[in-house]
């Protein structure tokens, strides 16, 4: 090994050792779940901007206005449209760590666009129900829910 090669390899090793501790924590942080905003979650799940969602009375969200326990909040969503026209229903909890809560993909065999479930809410926040219709419209409705004890830890 000549002098030039030796110096090069030493410099490279040094650089790797100096740099690697800085990269390691970043790599670990990337592996952890990332906190998402409501806007990002809508973009990721529906592939459209939040401004494209249309406030409508054709979708109905039933939930308690005050939830004692944030770990179990019963939610019902109903779309007042013929079932053939409804493609999917989504629920978003605006201030949760991951706002996207649930998606349901329907077919005409369902007979009625209805979804009942129980969700977790970390704190007091609005819950958004979104329905994607086959005619291209995306309708939503929103309801603020007051939470006494948070449910996401």
């Amino acid at each position, binding site marked *: 090994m000549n002098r030039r090669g030796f110096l090069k390899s030493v410099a490279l090793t040094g650089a790797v050792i100096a740099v690697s501790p800085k990269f390691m924590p970043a790599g670990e942080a990337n592996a952890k779940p990332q906190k998402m905003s409501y806007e990002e979650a809508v973009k990721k799940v529906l592939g459209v901007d939040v401004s494209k969602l249309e406030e409508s009375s054709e979708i109905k969200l039933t939930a308690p206005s005050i939830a004692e326990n944030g*770990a179990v*909040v019963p939610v019902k969503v109903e779309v007042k449209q013929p079932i053939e026209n409804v493609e999917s229903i989504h629920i978003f909890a605006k201030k949760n*760590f991951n706002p996207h809560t*649930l*998606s*349901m993909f329907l*077919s005409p065999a369902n*007979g009625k666009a209805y979804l009942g479930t129980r969700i977790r809410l970390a704190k007091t926040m609005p819950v958004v129900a979104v329905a994607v219709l086959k005619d291209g419209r995306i309708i939503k409705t929103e309801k603020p829910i007051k939470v006494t004890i948070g449910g996401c830890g």
Partner: protein
Amino acid sequence: MPKIAMIKVRPRRYKKGDLVRIDSVIMHPMNTGLVKNKKTGKIIPADYIDTVEVYYGGEKITSFKLTGSVSANPFLSFYIKADKEAPLKMVWKDITGDVTEKTVKIKPKG
């Protein structure tokens, strides 16, 4: 390991072509991966159901995508049109690879 699951058809008696509500529950902790164990201080690893599929007479009619924001022991309720005598199968899959299946018979009377 399959989990305990339950499916109920409401109402109990129905005719052919009626809309019936299906209520389903599965026993699952739905750990989000964000909560710390208070005794050991370690984060409880994420383990939640992310896909639920519903088959009626061998045909996939509905599917769900869930995240950790759904409560423990996830309850899902939806409607189907009972227009044939066929089994209704639900399949729950979680992110650790667990698969649970449960079947009920849809038997319209009259």
